[in-house]
């Protein structure tokens, strides 16, 4: 007869699935804030602790990317453990590109043993984008199947093969990614619904710059009942320059950047001499932060949005001014 671990019983009793801080913040009805950390291309733990210090207290949890863009970095789970120990709750990311179902389940058990609860399930960028384009990709499962597998591990105490997990399944808060503006557009809300059906508890979207279009998207998602079982966190990110805005618009699938956003970034450096790079950069970045704050303000008004996921790429220092500027500081404290 299987004994359910004590913590799990307590969690279930509160109607929580994992008891993670992020889950509790959302369950309590707060507007959640998550951030993102890119692990180093080395085994230097200090770099992580430096970034951690920039986010701690300003976000409820921080995502750690998993060999993003197919570039080898320290593993998401290992980084997550370091973050956990430093007092910042991690959201580990797991792609389908690098692991088969054995490795996935094994890694999840290991992560859970270290107290990690939040997992974001992703297909993963194709290895051809990264620094090891000749690698074999795995894709034993896709992200939908990974979500379902984790949900069954947690709720049915079983491995993917059907065998029982001794001592009960890992308490997980399962996340999915969504890209509302990638083609085919009309499908994306239905795809979000499918992720909810698969068992996702929360969703983080790709960066939103076109708030009006996102509003329409959320309208359809709410109609489909997506938000009844899933918390949607809208992705935002401060732009560093007009060049960055244009690059994202042209090169990253699903990122829609309205012309007025680009014009705004261009306007930020007007009047500053072109050789004064420092001043131009500072001005552009300041504008990027302001724009991000305004976007968060607008997005908060949209029905069904439960929080924001702030992606400050290689600019973790921007998190503090954005969170404070958007009136989202201080974060809810100890929730459990």
């Amino acid at each position, binding site marked *: 007869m299987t004994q359910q671990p004590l913590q799990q019983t307590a969690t279930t009793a509160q109607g929580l699935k994992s008891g993670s801080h992020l889950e509790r913040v959302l369950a309590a009805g707060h507007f959640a804030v998550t951030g993102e950390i890119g692990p180093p291309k080395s085994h230097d733990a200090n770099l992580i602790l430096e970034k951690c210090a920039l986010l701690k207290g300003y976000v409820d949890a921080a995502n750690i990317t998993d060999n993003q863009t197919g570039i080898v970095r320290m593993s998401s789970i290992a980084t997550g453990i370091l973050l956990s120990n430093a007092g910042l709750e991690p959201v580990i990311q797991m792609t389908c590109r690098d692991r088969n*179902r054995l490795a996935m389940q094994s890694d999840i058990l290991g992560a859970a043993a270290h107290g990690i609860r939040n997992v974001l399930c992703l297909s993963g960028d194709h290895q051809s984008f990264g620094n090891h384009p000749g690698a074999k*990709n795995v*894709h034993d499962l*896709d992200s939908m199947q990974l979500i379902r597998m984790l949900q069954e591990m947690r709720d049915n105490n079983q491995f*993917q093969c059907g065998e029982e997990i001794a001592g009960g399944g890992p308490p997980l808060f399962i996340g999915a990614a969504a890209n509302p503006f*990638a083609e085919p557009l009309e499908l994306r809300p239905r*795809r979000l619904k*499918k992720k909810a059906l698969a068992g996702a508890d929360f969703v983080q979207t790709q960066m939103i710059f076109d708030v009006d279009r996102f509003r329409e998207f959320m309208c359809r998602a709410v109609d489909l009942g997506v938000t009844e079982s899933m918390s949607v966190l809208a992705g935002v990110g401060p732009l560093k320059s007009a060049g960055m805005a244009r690059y994202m618009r042209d090169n990253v699938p699903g990122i829609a950047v309205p012309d007025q956003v680009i014009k705004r970034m261009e306007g930020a450096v007007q009047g500053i001499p072109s050789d004064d790079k420092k001043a131009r950069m500072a001005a552009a970045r300041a504008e990027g932060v302001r724009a991000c704050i305004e976007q968060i303000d607008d997005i908060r008004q949209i029905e069904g949005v439960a929080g924001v996921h702030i992606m400050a790429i290689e600019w973790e220092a921007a998190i503090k001014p954005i969170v404070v500027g958007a009136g989202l500081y201080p974060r809810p404290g100890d929730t459990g």
Partner: protein
Amino acid sequence: MIVADQKPIEDIRQMLRGKRKVLAVGCGTCVAVCFAGGKREVGVLSSALRMATELAGEAREIDEAIVQRQCEKEFIEHLGEQLDGYDAILSLGCGVGVQSLADQFPGTRVLPGLNTKFMGGPEEQGVWVERCQGCGNCLLDYTGGICPISRCPKQLMNGPCGGTADGGRCEVDPEIPCAWYRIWERMDTLEIQQELMEIRPPKDWSSSRDGGMRRVVRKDLQKPDLDDGS
């Protein structure tokens, strides 16, 4: 059909180092139809190699032969009568043909002149595209006749991913249409798009290459045992 294309001349020359007399053998089936290893291609390649090796000061005799199908013993057996004196066979068949020749003539070095690419077909004149990976458990009934294993770089079963680029192109290669974009479109045309809202469970890959080298046995077609007197 199996689609292949020729290895670069330089690579073939490397393989032929030290071999004075070579028999180039083409195949009249798949590789002839994708113009990689048919009679004509054998002629062009052999001529090119003869000249290239002579100009490099290492002249080789390269003779030409063609068989209907390299993959079947009955079509290649006769080559055995003329293999005396040849240091190697340069096979312009697909990987199956190369191995078939090597198995048939274990005492002769058999070299691959082609890179076998995939199972596919011509999309337009001069362009062949991949269509099938031989996963061993066809799921084309679920996807409206478009295979996500061979046509999606991530082999998604519940696609598309978030990377579909403008115009329904795959983020990995703009020349490839996003397979899942096409699948949703096709299922819509067939008026069964709703079926795609079901979550396809993880695939059993043991029927694919992952399970090991595969065999198909048809007992009804095997040669009956004449000694089975009963």
